[in-house]
């Protein structure tokens, strides 16, 4: 019979015999002025599209980054601020995002576990001053 545990006592698991499948984190907003920076994002090209957004469509944009891409998100925000040379200001907020992982045992398929993982995140609000 299938077993289902919602939390693990230890965060560790045997990587050889188990596979971790990460579900994508929840996006706070799916509007086009919310930019999500990941490890795979090319900052240079993204700066160009964000610039277009600020110039043509929106007065404010939101930049989100979590985990390993926090520094990238901040660099991205800095680059944008520098490009606009003082006409754009920023507010920075930090938070914690709860992600869900499914851990599937490759040896005994009836034992699957779902667990929570907290990841730090940063949200930058960029808006036009004038």
């Amino acid at each position, binding site marked *: 019979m299938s077993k289902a545990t*919602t939390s693990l006592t230890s965060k560790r698991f045997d990587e050889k015999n188990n596979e971790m499948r990460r579900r994508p984190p929840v996006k706070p907003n799916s509007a086009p002025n919310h930019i999500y920076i990941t490890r795979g994002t090319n900052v240079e090209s993204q700066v160009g599209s964000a610039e277009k957004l600020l110039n043509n469509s929106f007065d404010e944009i939101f930049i989100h980054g979590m985990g390993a891409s926090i520094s990238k998100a901040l660099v991205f925000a800095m680059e944008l601020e520098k490009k606009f040379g003082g006409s754009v200001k920023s507010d920075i907020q930090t938070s914690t995002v709860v992600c869900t992982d499914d851990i599937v045992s490759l040896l005994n398929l009836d034992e699957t576990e779902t667990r929570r993982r907290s990841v730090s995140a940063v949200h930058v609000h960029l808006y036009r001053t004038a």
Partner: protein
Amino acid sequence: MAHDVRRFPRTMRDFAASHLVSNHAKKCPSRFARRKSANSRNKFGRSTAAKGIWLSTHVWHAKRFRMCRKWGFKIADRSYQRGFRSVLRDSNKNCVIRDRSYYTCVTIQCPDAYSKLSPFSQKSCRGQSSRGEEEECHQLYTPGKYPYGYIGPARFQKLTTENEVHVWIHPSSKPQFLKALIKYYELKQTENSEELGPVEFKNSEMTVSIDSENLSRFHLSGPKCLQKIRDSIRFVGDSPEHDRFLSVAAGSVFSSMRDGEVLYLLIEDPRTTWDRKLGLKHKKVPIDNGEDLDWRANNPPQSQFWNREFREEAIQKRMTDAQYQKLNPDRIHGVVSTEAKIPILLIIRNEGLKALDGVDILIPEPFAKDFWVSLQRRAARASGLRDEYAAHLESKTLYFPLDDVESEAGRASEAATKTELLDKYNGKPHNRRCKYWSALSVKYPFEYKWDELVKDWDSVEEESGGAFVCRDLQKLRRIESGLKGKSESLEEMDPGMLLPVRIQFFGRGRPKKFGMICIPTNEDLISIRMNRNKEIIQTPPLLSKDEEEEEEPMDVLEETPPKGLQGFVSLEAAANEKPINLKWLFEESTKMDDRTTKRKRVNRKKKESKKRRKLEFESRKTEMETEETQKLTTNYRFSADREIAGRLVAGEQSVLGGHGQAVGYICASALRQIASNYHKNKTVVMVRNSTSKYYHPAYLTILKNAIQI
């Protein structure tokens, strides 16, 4: 005696009708009658297995899509109205829908049915587990023949009663599965009194029924798929399942639902939601943020969906289109509820494959077309088979059965592709045909011949069974970590094993089906690592070394004539002059009129051309014969400049990635040779298309996902 009652006087017709016994076939109904939508399906021999069975949405699709006959069905291939870009855009931002009703549902009823199927399903290849009634994908093998005897992937759903398992299987692998199942459990077909009832096989304790056309299956993918469903259905009553659906539909399906999770809903007739202007108001339910990790454990499923009588009752109560249209304008808000209450089943697909994740919907077949139209009115983009194939490649995964090389279905599709390509090739004139062997050294341009390739690499004997694909997920993980250098060394490979791989180009080039995965030489590796864009070209094999040396200076000597400056017109009179033969100027035109001479000249020309054709034919024949003997003597592995380690089964320029991307198989024994070919921490191989002489460098990764349907 007249056969037609209308030949009698009107007054006598009633009396005569009872006495008329006609052996004649009835006249075909008029074109007008035939084209009525109620008669368009399953009538007049249109929808037969030989011509291709029509799905419930066939008429809708046939107006807008190119239809093709595949696996005994008529399936929508691609849209006539839109190209691939709209489908791509909507699969990323909106919602794309496909009709997958051609999959067959095989129901197995017996005590402990799920474990009865375990001899067919290979546990090590599964990599997915279900809780409760969740649907999961299995890899089916003929019992006792693993690692050979692959049948194909299938989706299992076991019910909590444990006496019933529903197996969804691709129509191309259905015959092989049924054959194996009947043989293993010694089943016998029972005679069915109903014409349209399910086909049944039985033994003392097990009943296998194939309910091929009574359930429709739609696949929706894209981030807004649940919202689209929410907006196109009207719930019947209140149930925890409905609340769960509403709470999930507002957020993202992929963050809060497990792969294979099921939701049973009971809905009104889909036609009641066709009106666009009326926004459906559902009950307000708090949005799920993924906090309830194990919702299903606290809410066991209670549904009548798999109860055949319940579904048939709904079908019987279905209002006909005419009745519905008559009733609808009389109400201010249109018809809101009908007698038919339809059970539907939603299956969450959350496999981490970007373009394929979404929801599968199961719905009784008579309501399927209405539901499809209802979703269309909510702007779910319809797509066909071509888009499905492209979505699989975009998600870097194999598509069954076109990309499979081992099962009967895969082999059949390979043979069909070969004949199609060969016909196309032979239809071309000789000087337009690609010289696969003499110019490009491609031994098998239209087929893979895995058994031969594996034999060259492993020196396997043919009796052992030839090539097989490794689908053991743990083994694939170990091999991958060995390739990355994490574990100590690559373990001993089984002879004849093929590994599924993903190829990503990092330079130019667009991979295609039948491309070759080759092993780079040391010079190639140095040039790749130094970032030199040196072109690596396959030289024709017919040139022996001496000839090559002789020819080389010729290439150097060949000078291109200097081009004149653009827009510059030479004033020299001699520049544009051409020498003309004097004979042409003073040709004896009187002879032209002489009919005998003319005829003679024509005959002479005919003779000459006949002789030339004969000579050409003979020379071509000898050429082909020498080619054949050369091919026979040449080893498949060493047939080109670079050693061939594998072949590509599908490839294209990835639109999302912006680089060439392909999937294929390589011989496991070749892995040791490429294990140390690093470039930026990734394994490098050379890839060449079967129609090209250029080798392109590409990254190789082991595919660890199980093939799914």
